[in-house]
């Protein structure tokens, strides 16, 4: 009897296993194991990026695209005051959102990690906002902050104001408020994890060595949670700079951000090359600010003694 067809697939796997085991260095093994992910990421990140770079070097001529390579788009984007204005505003709004979110999240994470009895229940409660869609949450804020919204009706009803407040919606403030709420769990979780990891005897040691509650927090708890804070900041800051849903729904004209301009280029303005250029510039700015932030935050953390 011929048993070859049966042994084929087995031999195949064995050969694959053998060649994996036979790879000399750890490095080669690592490369082999990460190959599937690398291919996947290559298609979904690298390829679009290459296309984006290509587009940014072309130009739009009314209906068609001129494929001669040029830096004209970059020149235009870098000299246009509107672009600069929107870019700076986007980064400032994102920074404000990050600051507000982390400032709100830290005490919550601190409470859950160090004081609460039922941690799992609290963590579950934190994720409740995620049970409804992001868009719904943004609309909910619109209802709360609007001219005839919940906030104004309540304040009018109580008699604290006589005319509805108009500064609540359609500006930077409403964008920051909405995003801070939306991002809260993303900030709470990494900070919670870093607080949770702190050995309680470290806090006792600080206390034993003469630190009161405040010193104990500033000299031990805070520096040990810096990695968590950095993670939280990056998780929030990076996507916020490029957010366009929230600013277009609650931002009004004062709350517009760079992503809204980019969206226009790919849509109404029909200038893909300029849109691609703006996207790349936004990415670079975000990367630059993020690296600067990580370096200065770790540096500051090291100086705490």
């Amino acid at each position, binding site marked *: 009897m011929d048993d070859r067809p049966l042994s084929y697939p087995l031999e195949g796997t064995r050969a694959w296993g053998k060649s994996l085991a036979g790879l000399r260095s750890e490095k080669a093994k690592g490369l082999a194991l990460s190959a599937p992910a690398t291919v996947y990421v290559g298609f979904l990140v690298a390829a679009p990026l290459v296309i984006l770079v290509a587009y940014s070097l072309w130009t739009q001529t009314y209906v068609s695209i001129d494929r001669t390579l040029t830096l004209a788009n970059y020149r235009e984007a870098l000299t246009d005051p509107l672009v600069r204005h929107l870019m700076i505003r986007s980064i400032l709004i994102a920074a404000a959102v990050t600051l507000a979110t982390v400032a709100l999240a830290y005490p919550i994470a601190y409470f859950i990690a160090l004081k609460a009895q039922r941690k799992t229940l609290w963590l579950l409660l934190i994720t409740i906002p995620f049970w409804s869609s992001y868009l719904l949450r943004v609309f909910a804020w619109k209802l709360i902050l609007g001219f005839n919204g919940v906030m104004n009706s309540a304040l009018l009803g109580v008699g604290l104001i006589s005319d509805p407040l108009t500064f609540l919606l359609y500006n930077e403030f409403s964008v920051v408020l909405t995003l801070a709420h939306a991002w809260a769990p993303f900030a709470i979780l990494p900070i919670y994890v870093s607080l949770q990891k702190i050995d309680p005897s*470290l806090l*006792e*040691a600080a*206390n*034993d*060595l003469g630190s009161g509650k405040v010193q104990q927090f500033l000299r031990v708890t805070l520096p040990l949670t810096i990695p968590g804070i950095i993670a939280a900041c990056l998780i929030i800051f990076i996507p916020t700079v490029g957010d366009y849903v929230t600013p277009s729904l609650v931002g009004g004209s004062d709350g517009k951000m760079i992503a809204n301009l980019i969206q226009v280029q790919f849509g109404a303005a029909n200038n893909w090359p300029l849109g691609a250029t703006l996207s790349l510039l936004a990415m670079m700015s975000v990367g630059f600010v993020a690296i600067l932030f990580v370096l200065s935050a770790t540096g500051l953390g090291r100086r705490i003694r």
Partner: protein
Amino acid sequence: MTETNIIQLQGIEKRFGKFVAVSDLSLDLREGEFFSLLGPSGCGKTTALRMIAGFQEPTEGKVLIDGQDMEGMPANKRPTNMVFQSYAIFPHLNVGNNVAYGLRNRGISKSEIDTRVKEALEMVELGGLEARGANELSGGQRQRVALARALVMRPKVLLLDEPLSALDKKLREQMQFEMRHLQQSLGITFVMVTHDQYEAMTMSDRIGVMFDGRLVQVDTPQTLYAKPGSREVASFIGEMNFLPAEVTAETGDTFSISTPGFGAMKIEANPNVARHGRHISVGIRPEQLEIARHKPDGYDGTVQGVVRDVAFYGENVHYHVGVEGLDKPIAASVPNYFHTVDHAPGDKVWLGVQAASVIDLGEDKQTS
């Protein structure tokens, strides 16, 4: 010698809900002594230490340090410092900054901090390691950093929670001597918690033995070993053979007993045991027994038996000898003088003991 009590524990009790972790603990610690709290796991040693340090408030009773009532005084205001079981080295600080941590809370000038840190590190033989990261230290080095970090504060009392339990045997023995020398040269009161009887005995001036939240005996290592206050203490510290005995006559500090096997003897009363009934329990340390092929001369009590097991420990040899009339074999330990093991299982041997080595343990609660 003028002895002042640096720490006074007055009837302290600690309850966690209904559970009593430490009950009615009264203890005076002398200035400059090395005191150990010894007891099995879970007996409340750490809890007692933490009440002195200020991490926990007693449910009842008072803690006085240097005559001052510590009630409501947080740990950072107490003149004590602690070496934690896990060492609790700050992972984000290097060795120098770990040691300097406490000094920086005191508003001391930078130059003085530097010299004191340097001194402290030299004291624990880690001189020059200031810049080493906290995560780049061996277990023994971490222990030394923890010690330096606490001692640099010049506390009135240093509290140590099982400071050596994370180290291997060799290093542990070396550190026992080093810490003892350090304590003697600094003259600081050390209060150490341990469940290791040898550690407690080699290092301490006095030992307090705890069982189930109660302090059962406080004495010098020698007294604890020679005159334990109860069967519990006797079996926790060192090895002990227990024998039932009957008191036949009592004259002041000595009384006559008769034991199965060893027969009649006249032994000294143990002042640490409370009351004597007619049926008492006596103890004999294994190393106090002579073991021989022929009936040994000059012993107050002798008995014949059969060797059951032999265990060779290197520095000494342990024999378990079955004796008629006793349910448990008697353990005898002999120094390994001539690199020979003289008896084998099944051999008929004689055991001999001096009356002075027979310890009165009071009433035998497990009377047959």
